[in-house]
């Protein structure tokens, strides 16, 4: 049996920076203030035709750089592609943050003497290595909604359904459908690596 690969996608044509996802996440996992596992970012605020918003969190990369650079090997990647880590192994060194293209890892200041504690990041609502749905798991990682068969809180509560999570093939199907129906279409010639990021 081959497993689906779970991915996030945020449709910037629909994202309106309502912050529903980030607050839903914070509320669902009862995060301390200052930790945003998910954050909505608006660029070109107030510029006509150029303003847009996207919701960013851990993208659960296929070959996650965070997992590669971790000096204590606290990361593990589930068979469905969700990248998780063990907070009892993590030392809060910050290397995963330096390796992450999306700035996903967060470091609450809850260690000894108010120092930076161990890393915290989006779990795609899949908890951690502790016993599923145990009080300890919930304390450390928040809800384990995937185990309950539920959609992660952020995507489920997205007000405009801009944020989608699921099997990457399903997600890209939805995306393709939306782009087509918008009547603008996807550019037929692909953007190369040289142009894909602006420079």
């Amino acid at each position: 049996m081959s497993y689906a690969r779970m991915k996030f996608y945020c449709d910037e044509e629909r994202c309106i920076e309502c912050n529903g996802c980030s607050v839903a996440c914070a509320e669902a996992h009862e995060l301390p203030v200052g930790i945003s596992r998910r954050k909505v970012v608006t660029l070109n605020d107030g510029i006509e035709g150029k303003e847009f918003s996207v919701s960013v969190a851990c993208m659960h990369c296929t070959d996650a750089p965070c997992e590669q650079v971790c000096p204590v090997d606290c990361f593990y990647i589930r068979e469905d592609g969700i990248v998780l880590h063990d907070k009892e192994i993590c030392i809060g060194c910050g290397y995963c943050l330096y390796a992450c293209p999306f700035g996903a890892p967060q470091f609450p200041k809850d260690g000894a003497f108010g120092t930076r504690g161990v890393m915290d990041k989006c779990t795609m609502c899949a908890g951690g290595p502790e016993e599923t749905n145990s009080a300890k798991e919930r304390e450390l990682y928040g809800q384990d909604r995937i185990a309950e068969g539920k959609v992660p809180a952020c995507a489920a509560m997205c007000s405009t359904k801009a944020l989608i999570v699921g099997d990457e093939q399903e997600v890209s199907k939805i995306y393709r459908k939306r782009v087509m129906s918008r009547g603008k279409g996807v550019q037929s010639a692909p953007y190369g690596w040289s142009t894909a990021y602006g420079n």
Partner: protein
Amino acid sequence: MKKILMLCLGFFGLYAREIAGKVPLVSKDMAPHSGGDLLVSSQMIDNILHYQTWGELFVYLQVHWFRLLFFGITVGVLVVFLLHYLIIGPKKFAHSGKGIFVYSIFKRVVHWAAALAFVLVIPTGFMMIFGKELGGGDLVLTARYVHSIGTVLFIVSFIPMFLMWLIPMLPSFDDIKWFLMLGGYLTKKKVVVPAGQFNAGQKMWFWVAMLGGIVMIGSGAMMYFQDFHLSILDRFGLDQIDLIRVAAITHNFLGMAVAALFITHLYMSLFAIKGSLDSMIDGYKSEDEVRYMHSSFYKKLKKEDKI
């Protein structure tokens, strides 16, 4: 390199393309209303665009080189000294007589404070680098905290040490000669080594520890504090996260040099020159040792009639 990027962005490609079509930020000042957490502000998106430069380099070095180099250098240095000890052996100097008073109590306290700092910082640094083998968790986490505490101690001892040894540590012609004969360590014979109060090896250690120390403190602080903002960064087209990445790379490479010289310093004072440790305990160096190992200094003292 491409491979890492492609794999990492994988699915995100589509999405990143959408973003790339837009112009970059009009002004970096126009961040979201919530201040304070720069790492998760609009810079996060910029970060995606610039990931190729420093982000990838950091991943590449961390995945392939840092651990290997640390391991190689440490083992290499240790093997060299082991061989040196076995083949050439330590230098022994006569410890009869009063000896020459070289280190005042103040200097000794400062030295030992710095020494303690290094003893705290360097092994804990190694513990973090090889955290995998230690299983991570509380042990390595504690090591991380100790690393920070050691840094504070180092900062405290840094300034007096820098000031008290700045003049004697300035380079001189002796240093070239010292290097040419590698400080006379490659021979079993007692040779007269050209050196002032401090020889070139000590000077090297001093400058790496001091100047390197500053850089280590600076880069370490960046990694420690994470959320800070330097407006000067914009001028260099660097994002704050990029600066931290540069800091991490620098910290690692410089760490290798510091670690290597620290081990050398330990070997020299504990093994290579028997009894040299005493000078840092009671402040007296044996005359014999000074005569050979710091010949210029010896001559100078003689001239000034201080012996």
